[in-house]
């Protein structure tokens, strides 16, 4: 699981994965703690910091789709291991606010991985184990011709 974290193409300030808790071919669970010092809290919102939905979505995509995708690709050949990836669609519902410093758990279940597209049903829970966000996120492996 550590290997997957090392393969992630993100770094601070845009890495939103701390730990992978569980992983298999069909699902993944991971966690992240939103640093209270993140720049975006200064402006979202003025004097009332709440984690932006796009950041929650990004965290869910990084854990739920990218980490799971890397795990699935690691079983394949070397070419695919080096593949570049892209987010292709999200359809989210935001149910509760996530405040600075909160730790969240992301649970993702694969709907399918075919024709280079991974589509997952993803949920995010806060430290009280209550559902804060859920939705469907898809990503694709880009073919070599789109690289560079």
């Amino acid at each position, binding site marked *: 699981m550590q290997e997957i974290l090392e393969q992630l193409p993100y770094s601070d300030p845009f890495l939103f994965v701390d730990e992978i808790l569980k992983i298999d071919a069909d699902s993944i669970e991971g966690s992240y703690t939103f640093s209270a010092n993140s720049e975006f809290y200064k402006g979202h919102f003025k004097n009332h910091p709440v984690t932006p939905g796009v950041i929650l979505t990004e965290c869910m995509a990084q854990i739920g789709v990218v980490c799971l995708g890397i795990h699935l690709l690691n079983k394949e050949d070397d070419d695919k291991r080096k593949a570049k990836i892209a987010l*292709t669609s999200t359809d989210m519902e935001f149910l509760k606010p996530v405040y600075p410093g909160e730790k969240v758990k992301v649970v993702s279940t694969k709907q399918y991985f*075919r*024709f280079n*597209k991974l*589509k997952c049903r993803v949920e995010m829970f806060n430290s009280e184990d209550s559902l804060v966000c859920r939705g469907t996120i898809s990503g*694709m492996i880009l073919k070599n011709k789109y690289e560079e």
Partner: protein
Amino acid sequence: MSDKEIINKIKKIVEPYVQRLEGLKNFQEETDFLNDLQINSANLVDVVLDVEDEFDIEIDNDSMEGMLTVGDAKSIIERKLMTR
């Protein structure tokens, strides 16, 4: 299943993913998924999976790559239905 029946089923499958609605008015074999209907390549995967479910066939990677128009899809469906 007649050509027309297959094409009508394809039309119903692609509808939710079509971004250029004009393309649906003149839906025929020459209709191109990416250009005429502006279905993006990620959604084309969903179209193919829906085609598999609707016709109870399995579409392989090579067939998927050759599926550019409604006519291509129809031919692939017909071929798969015959060898099922």
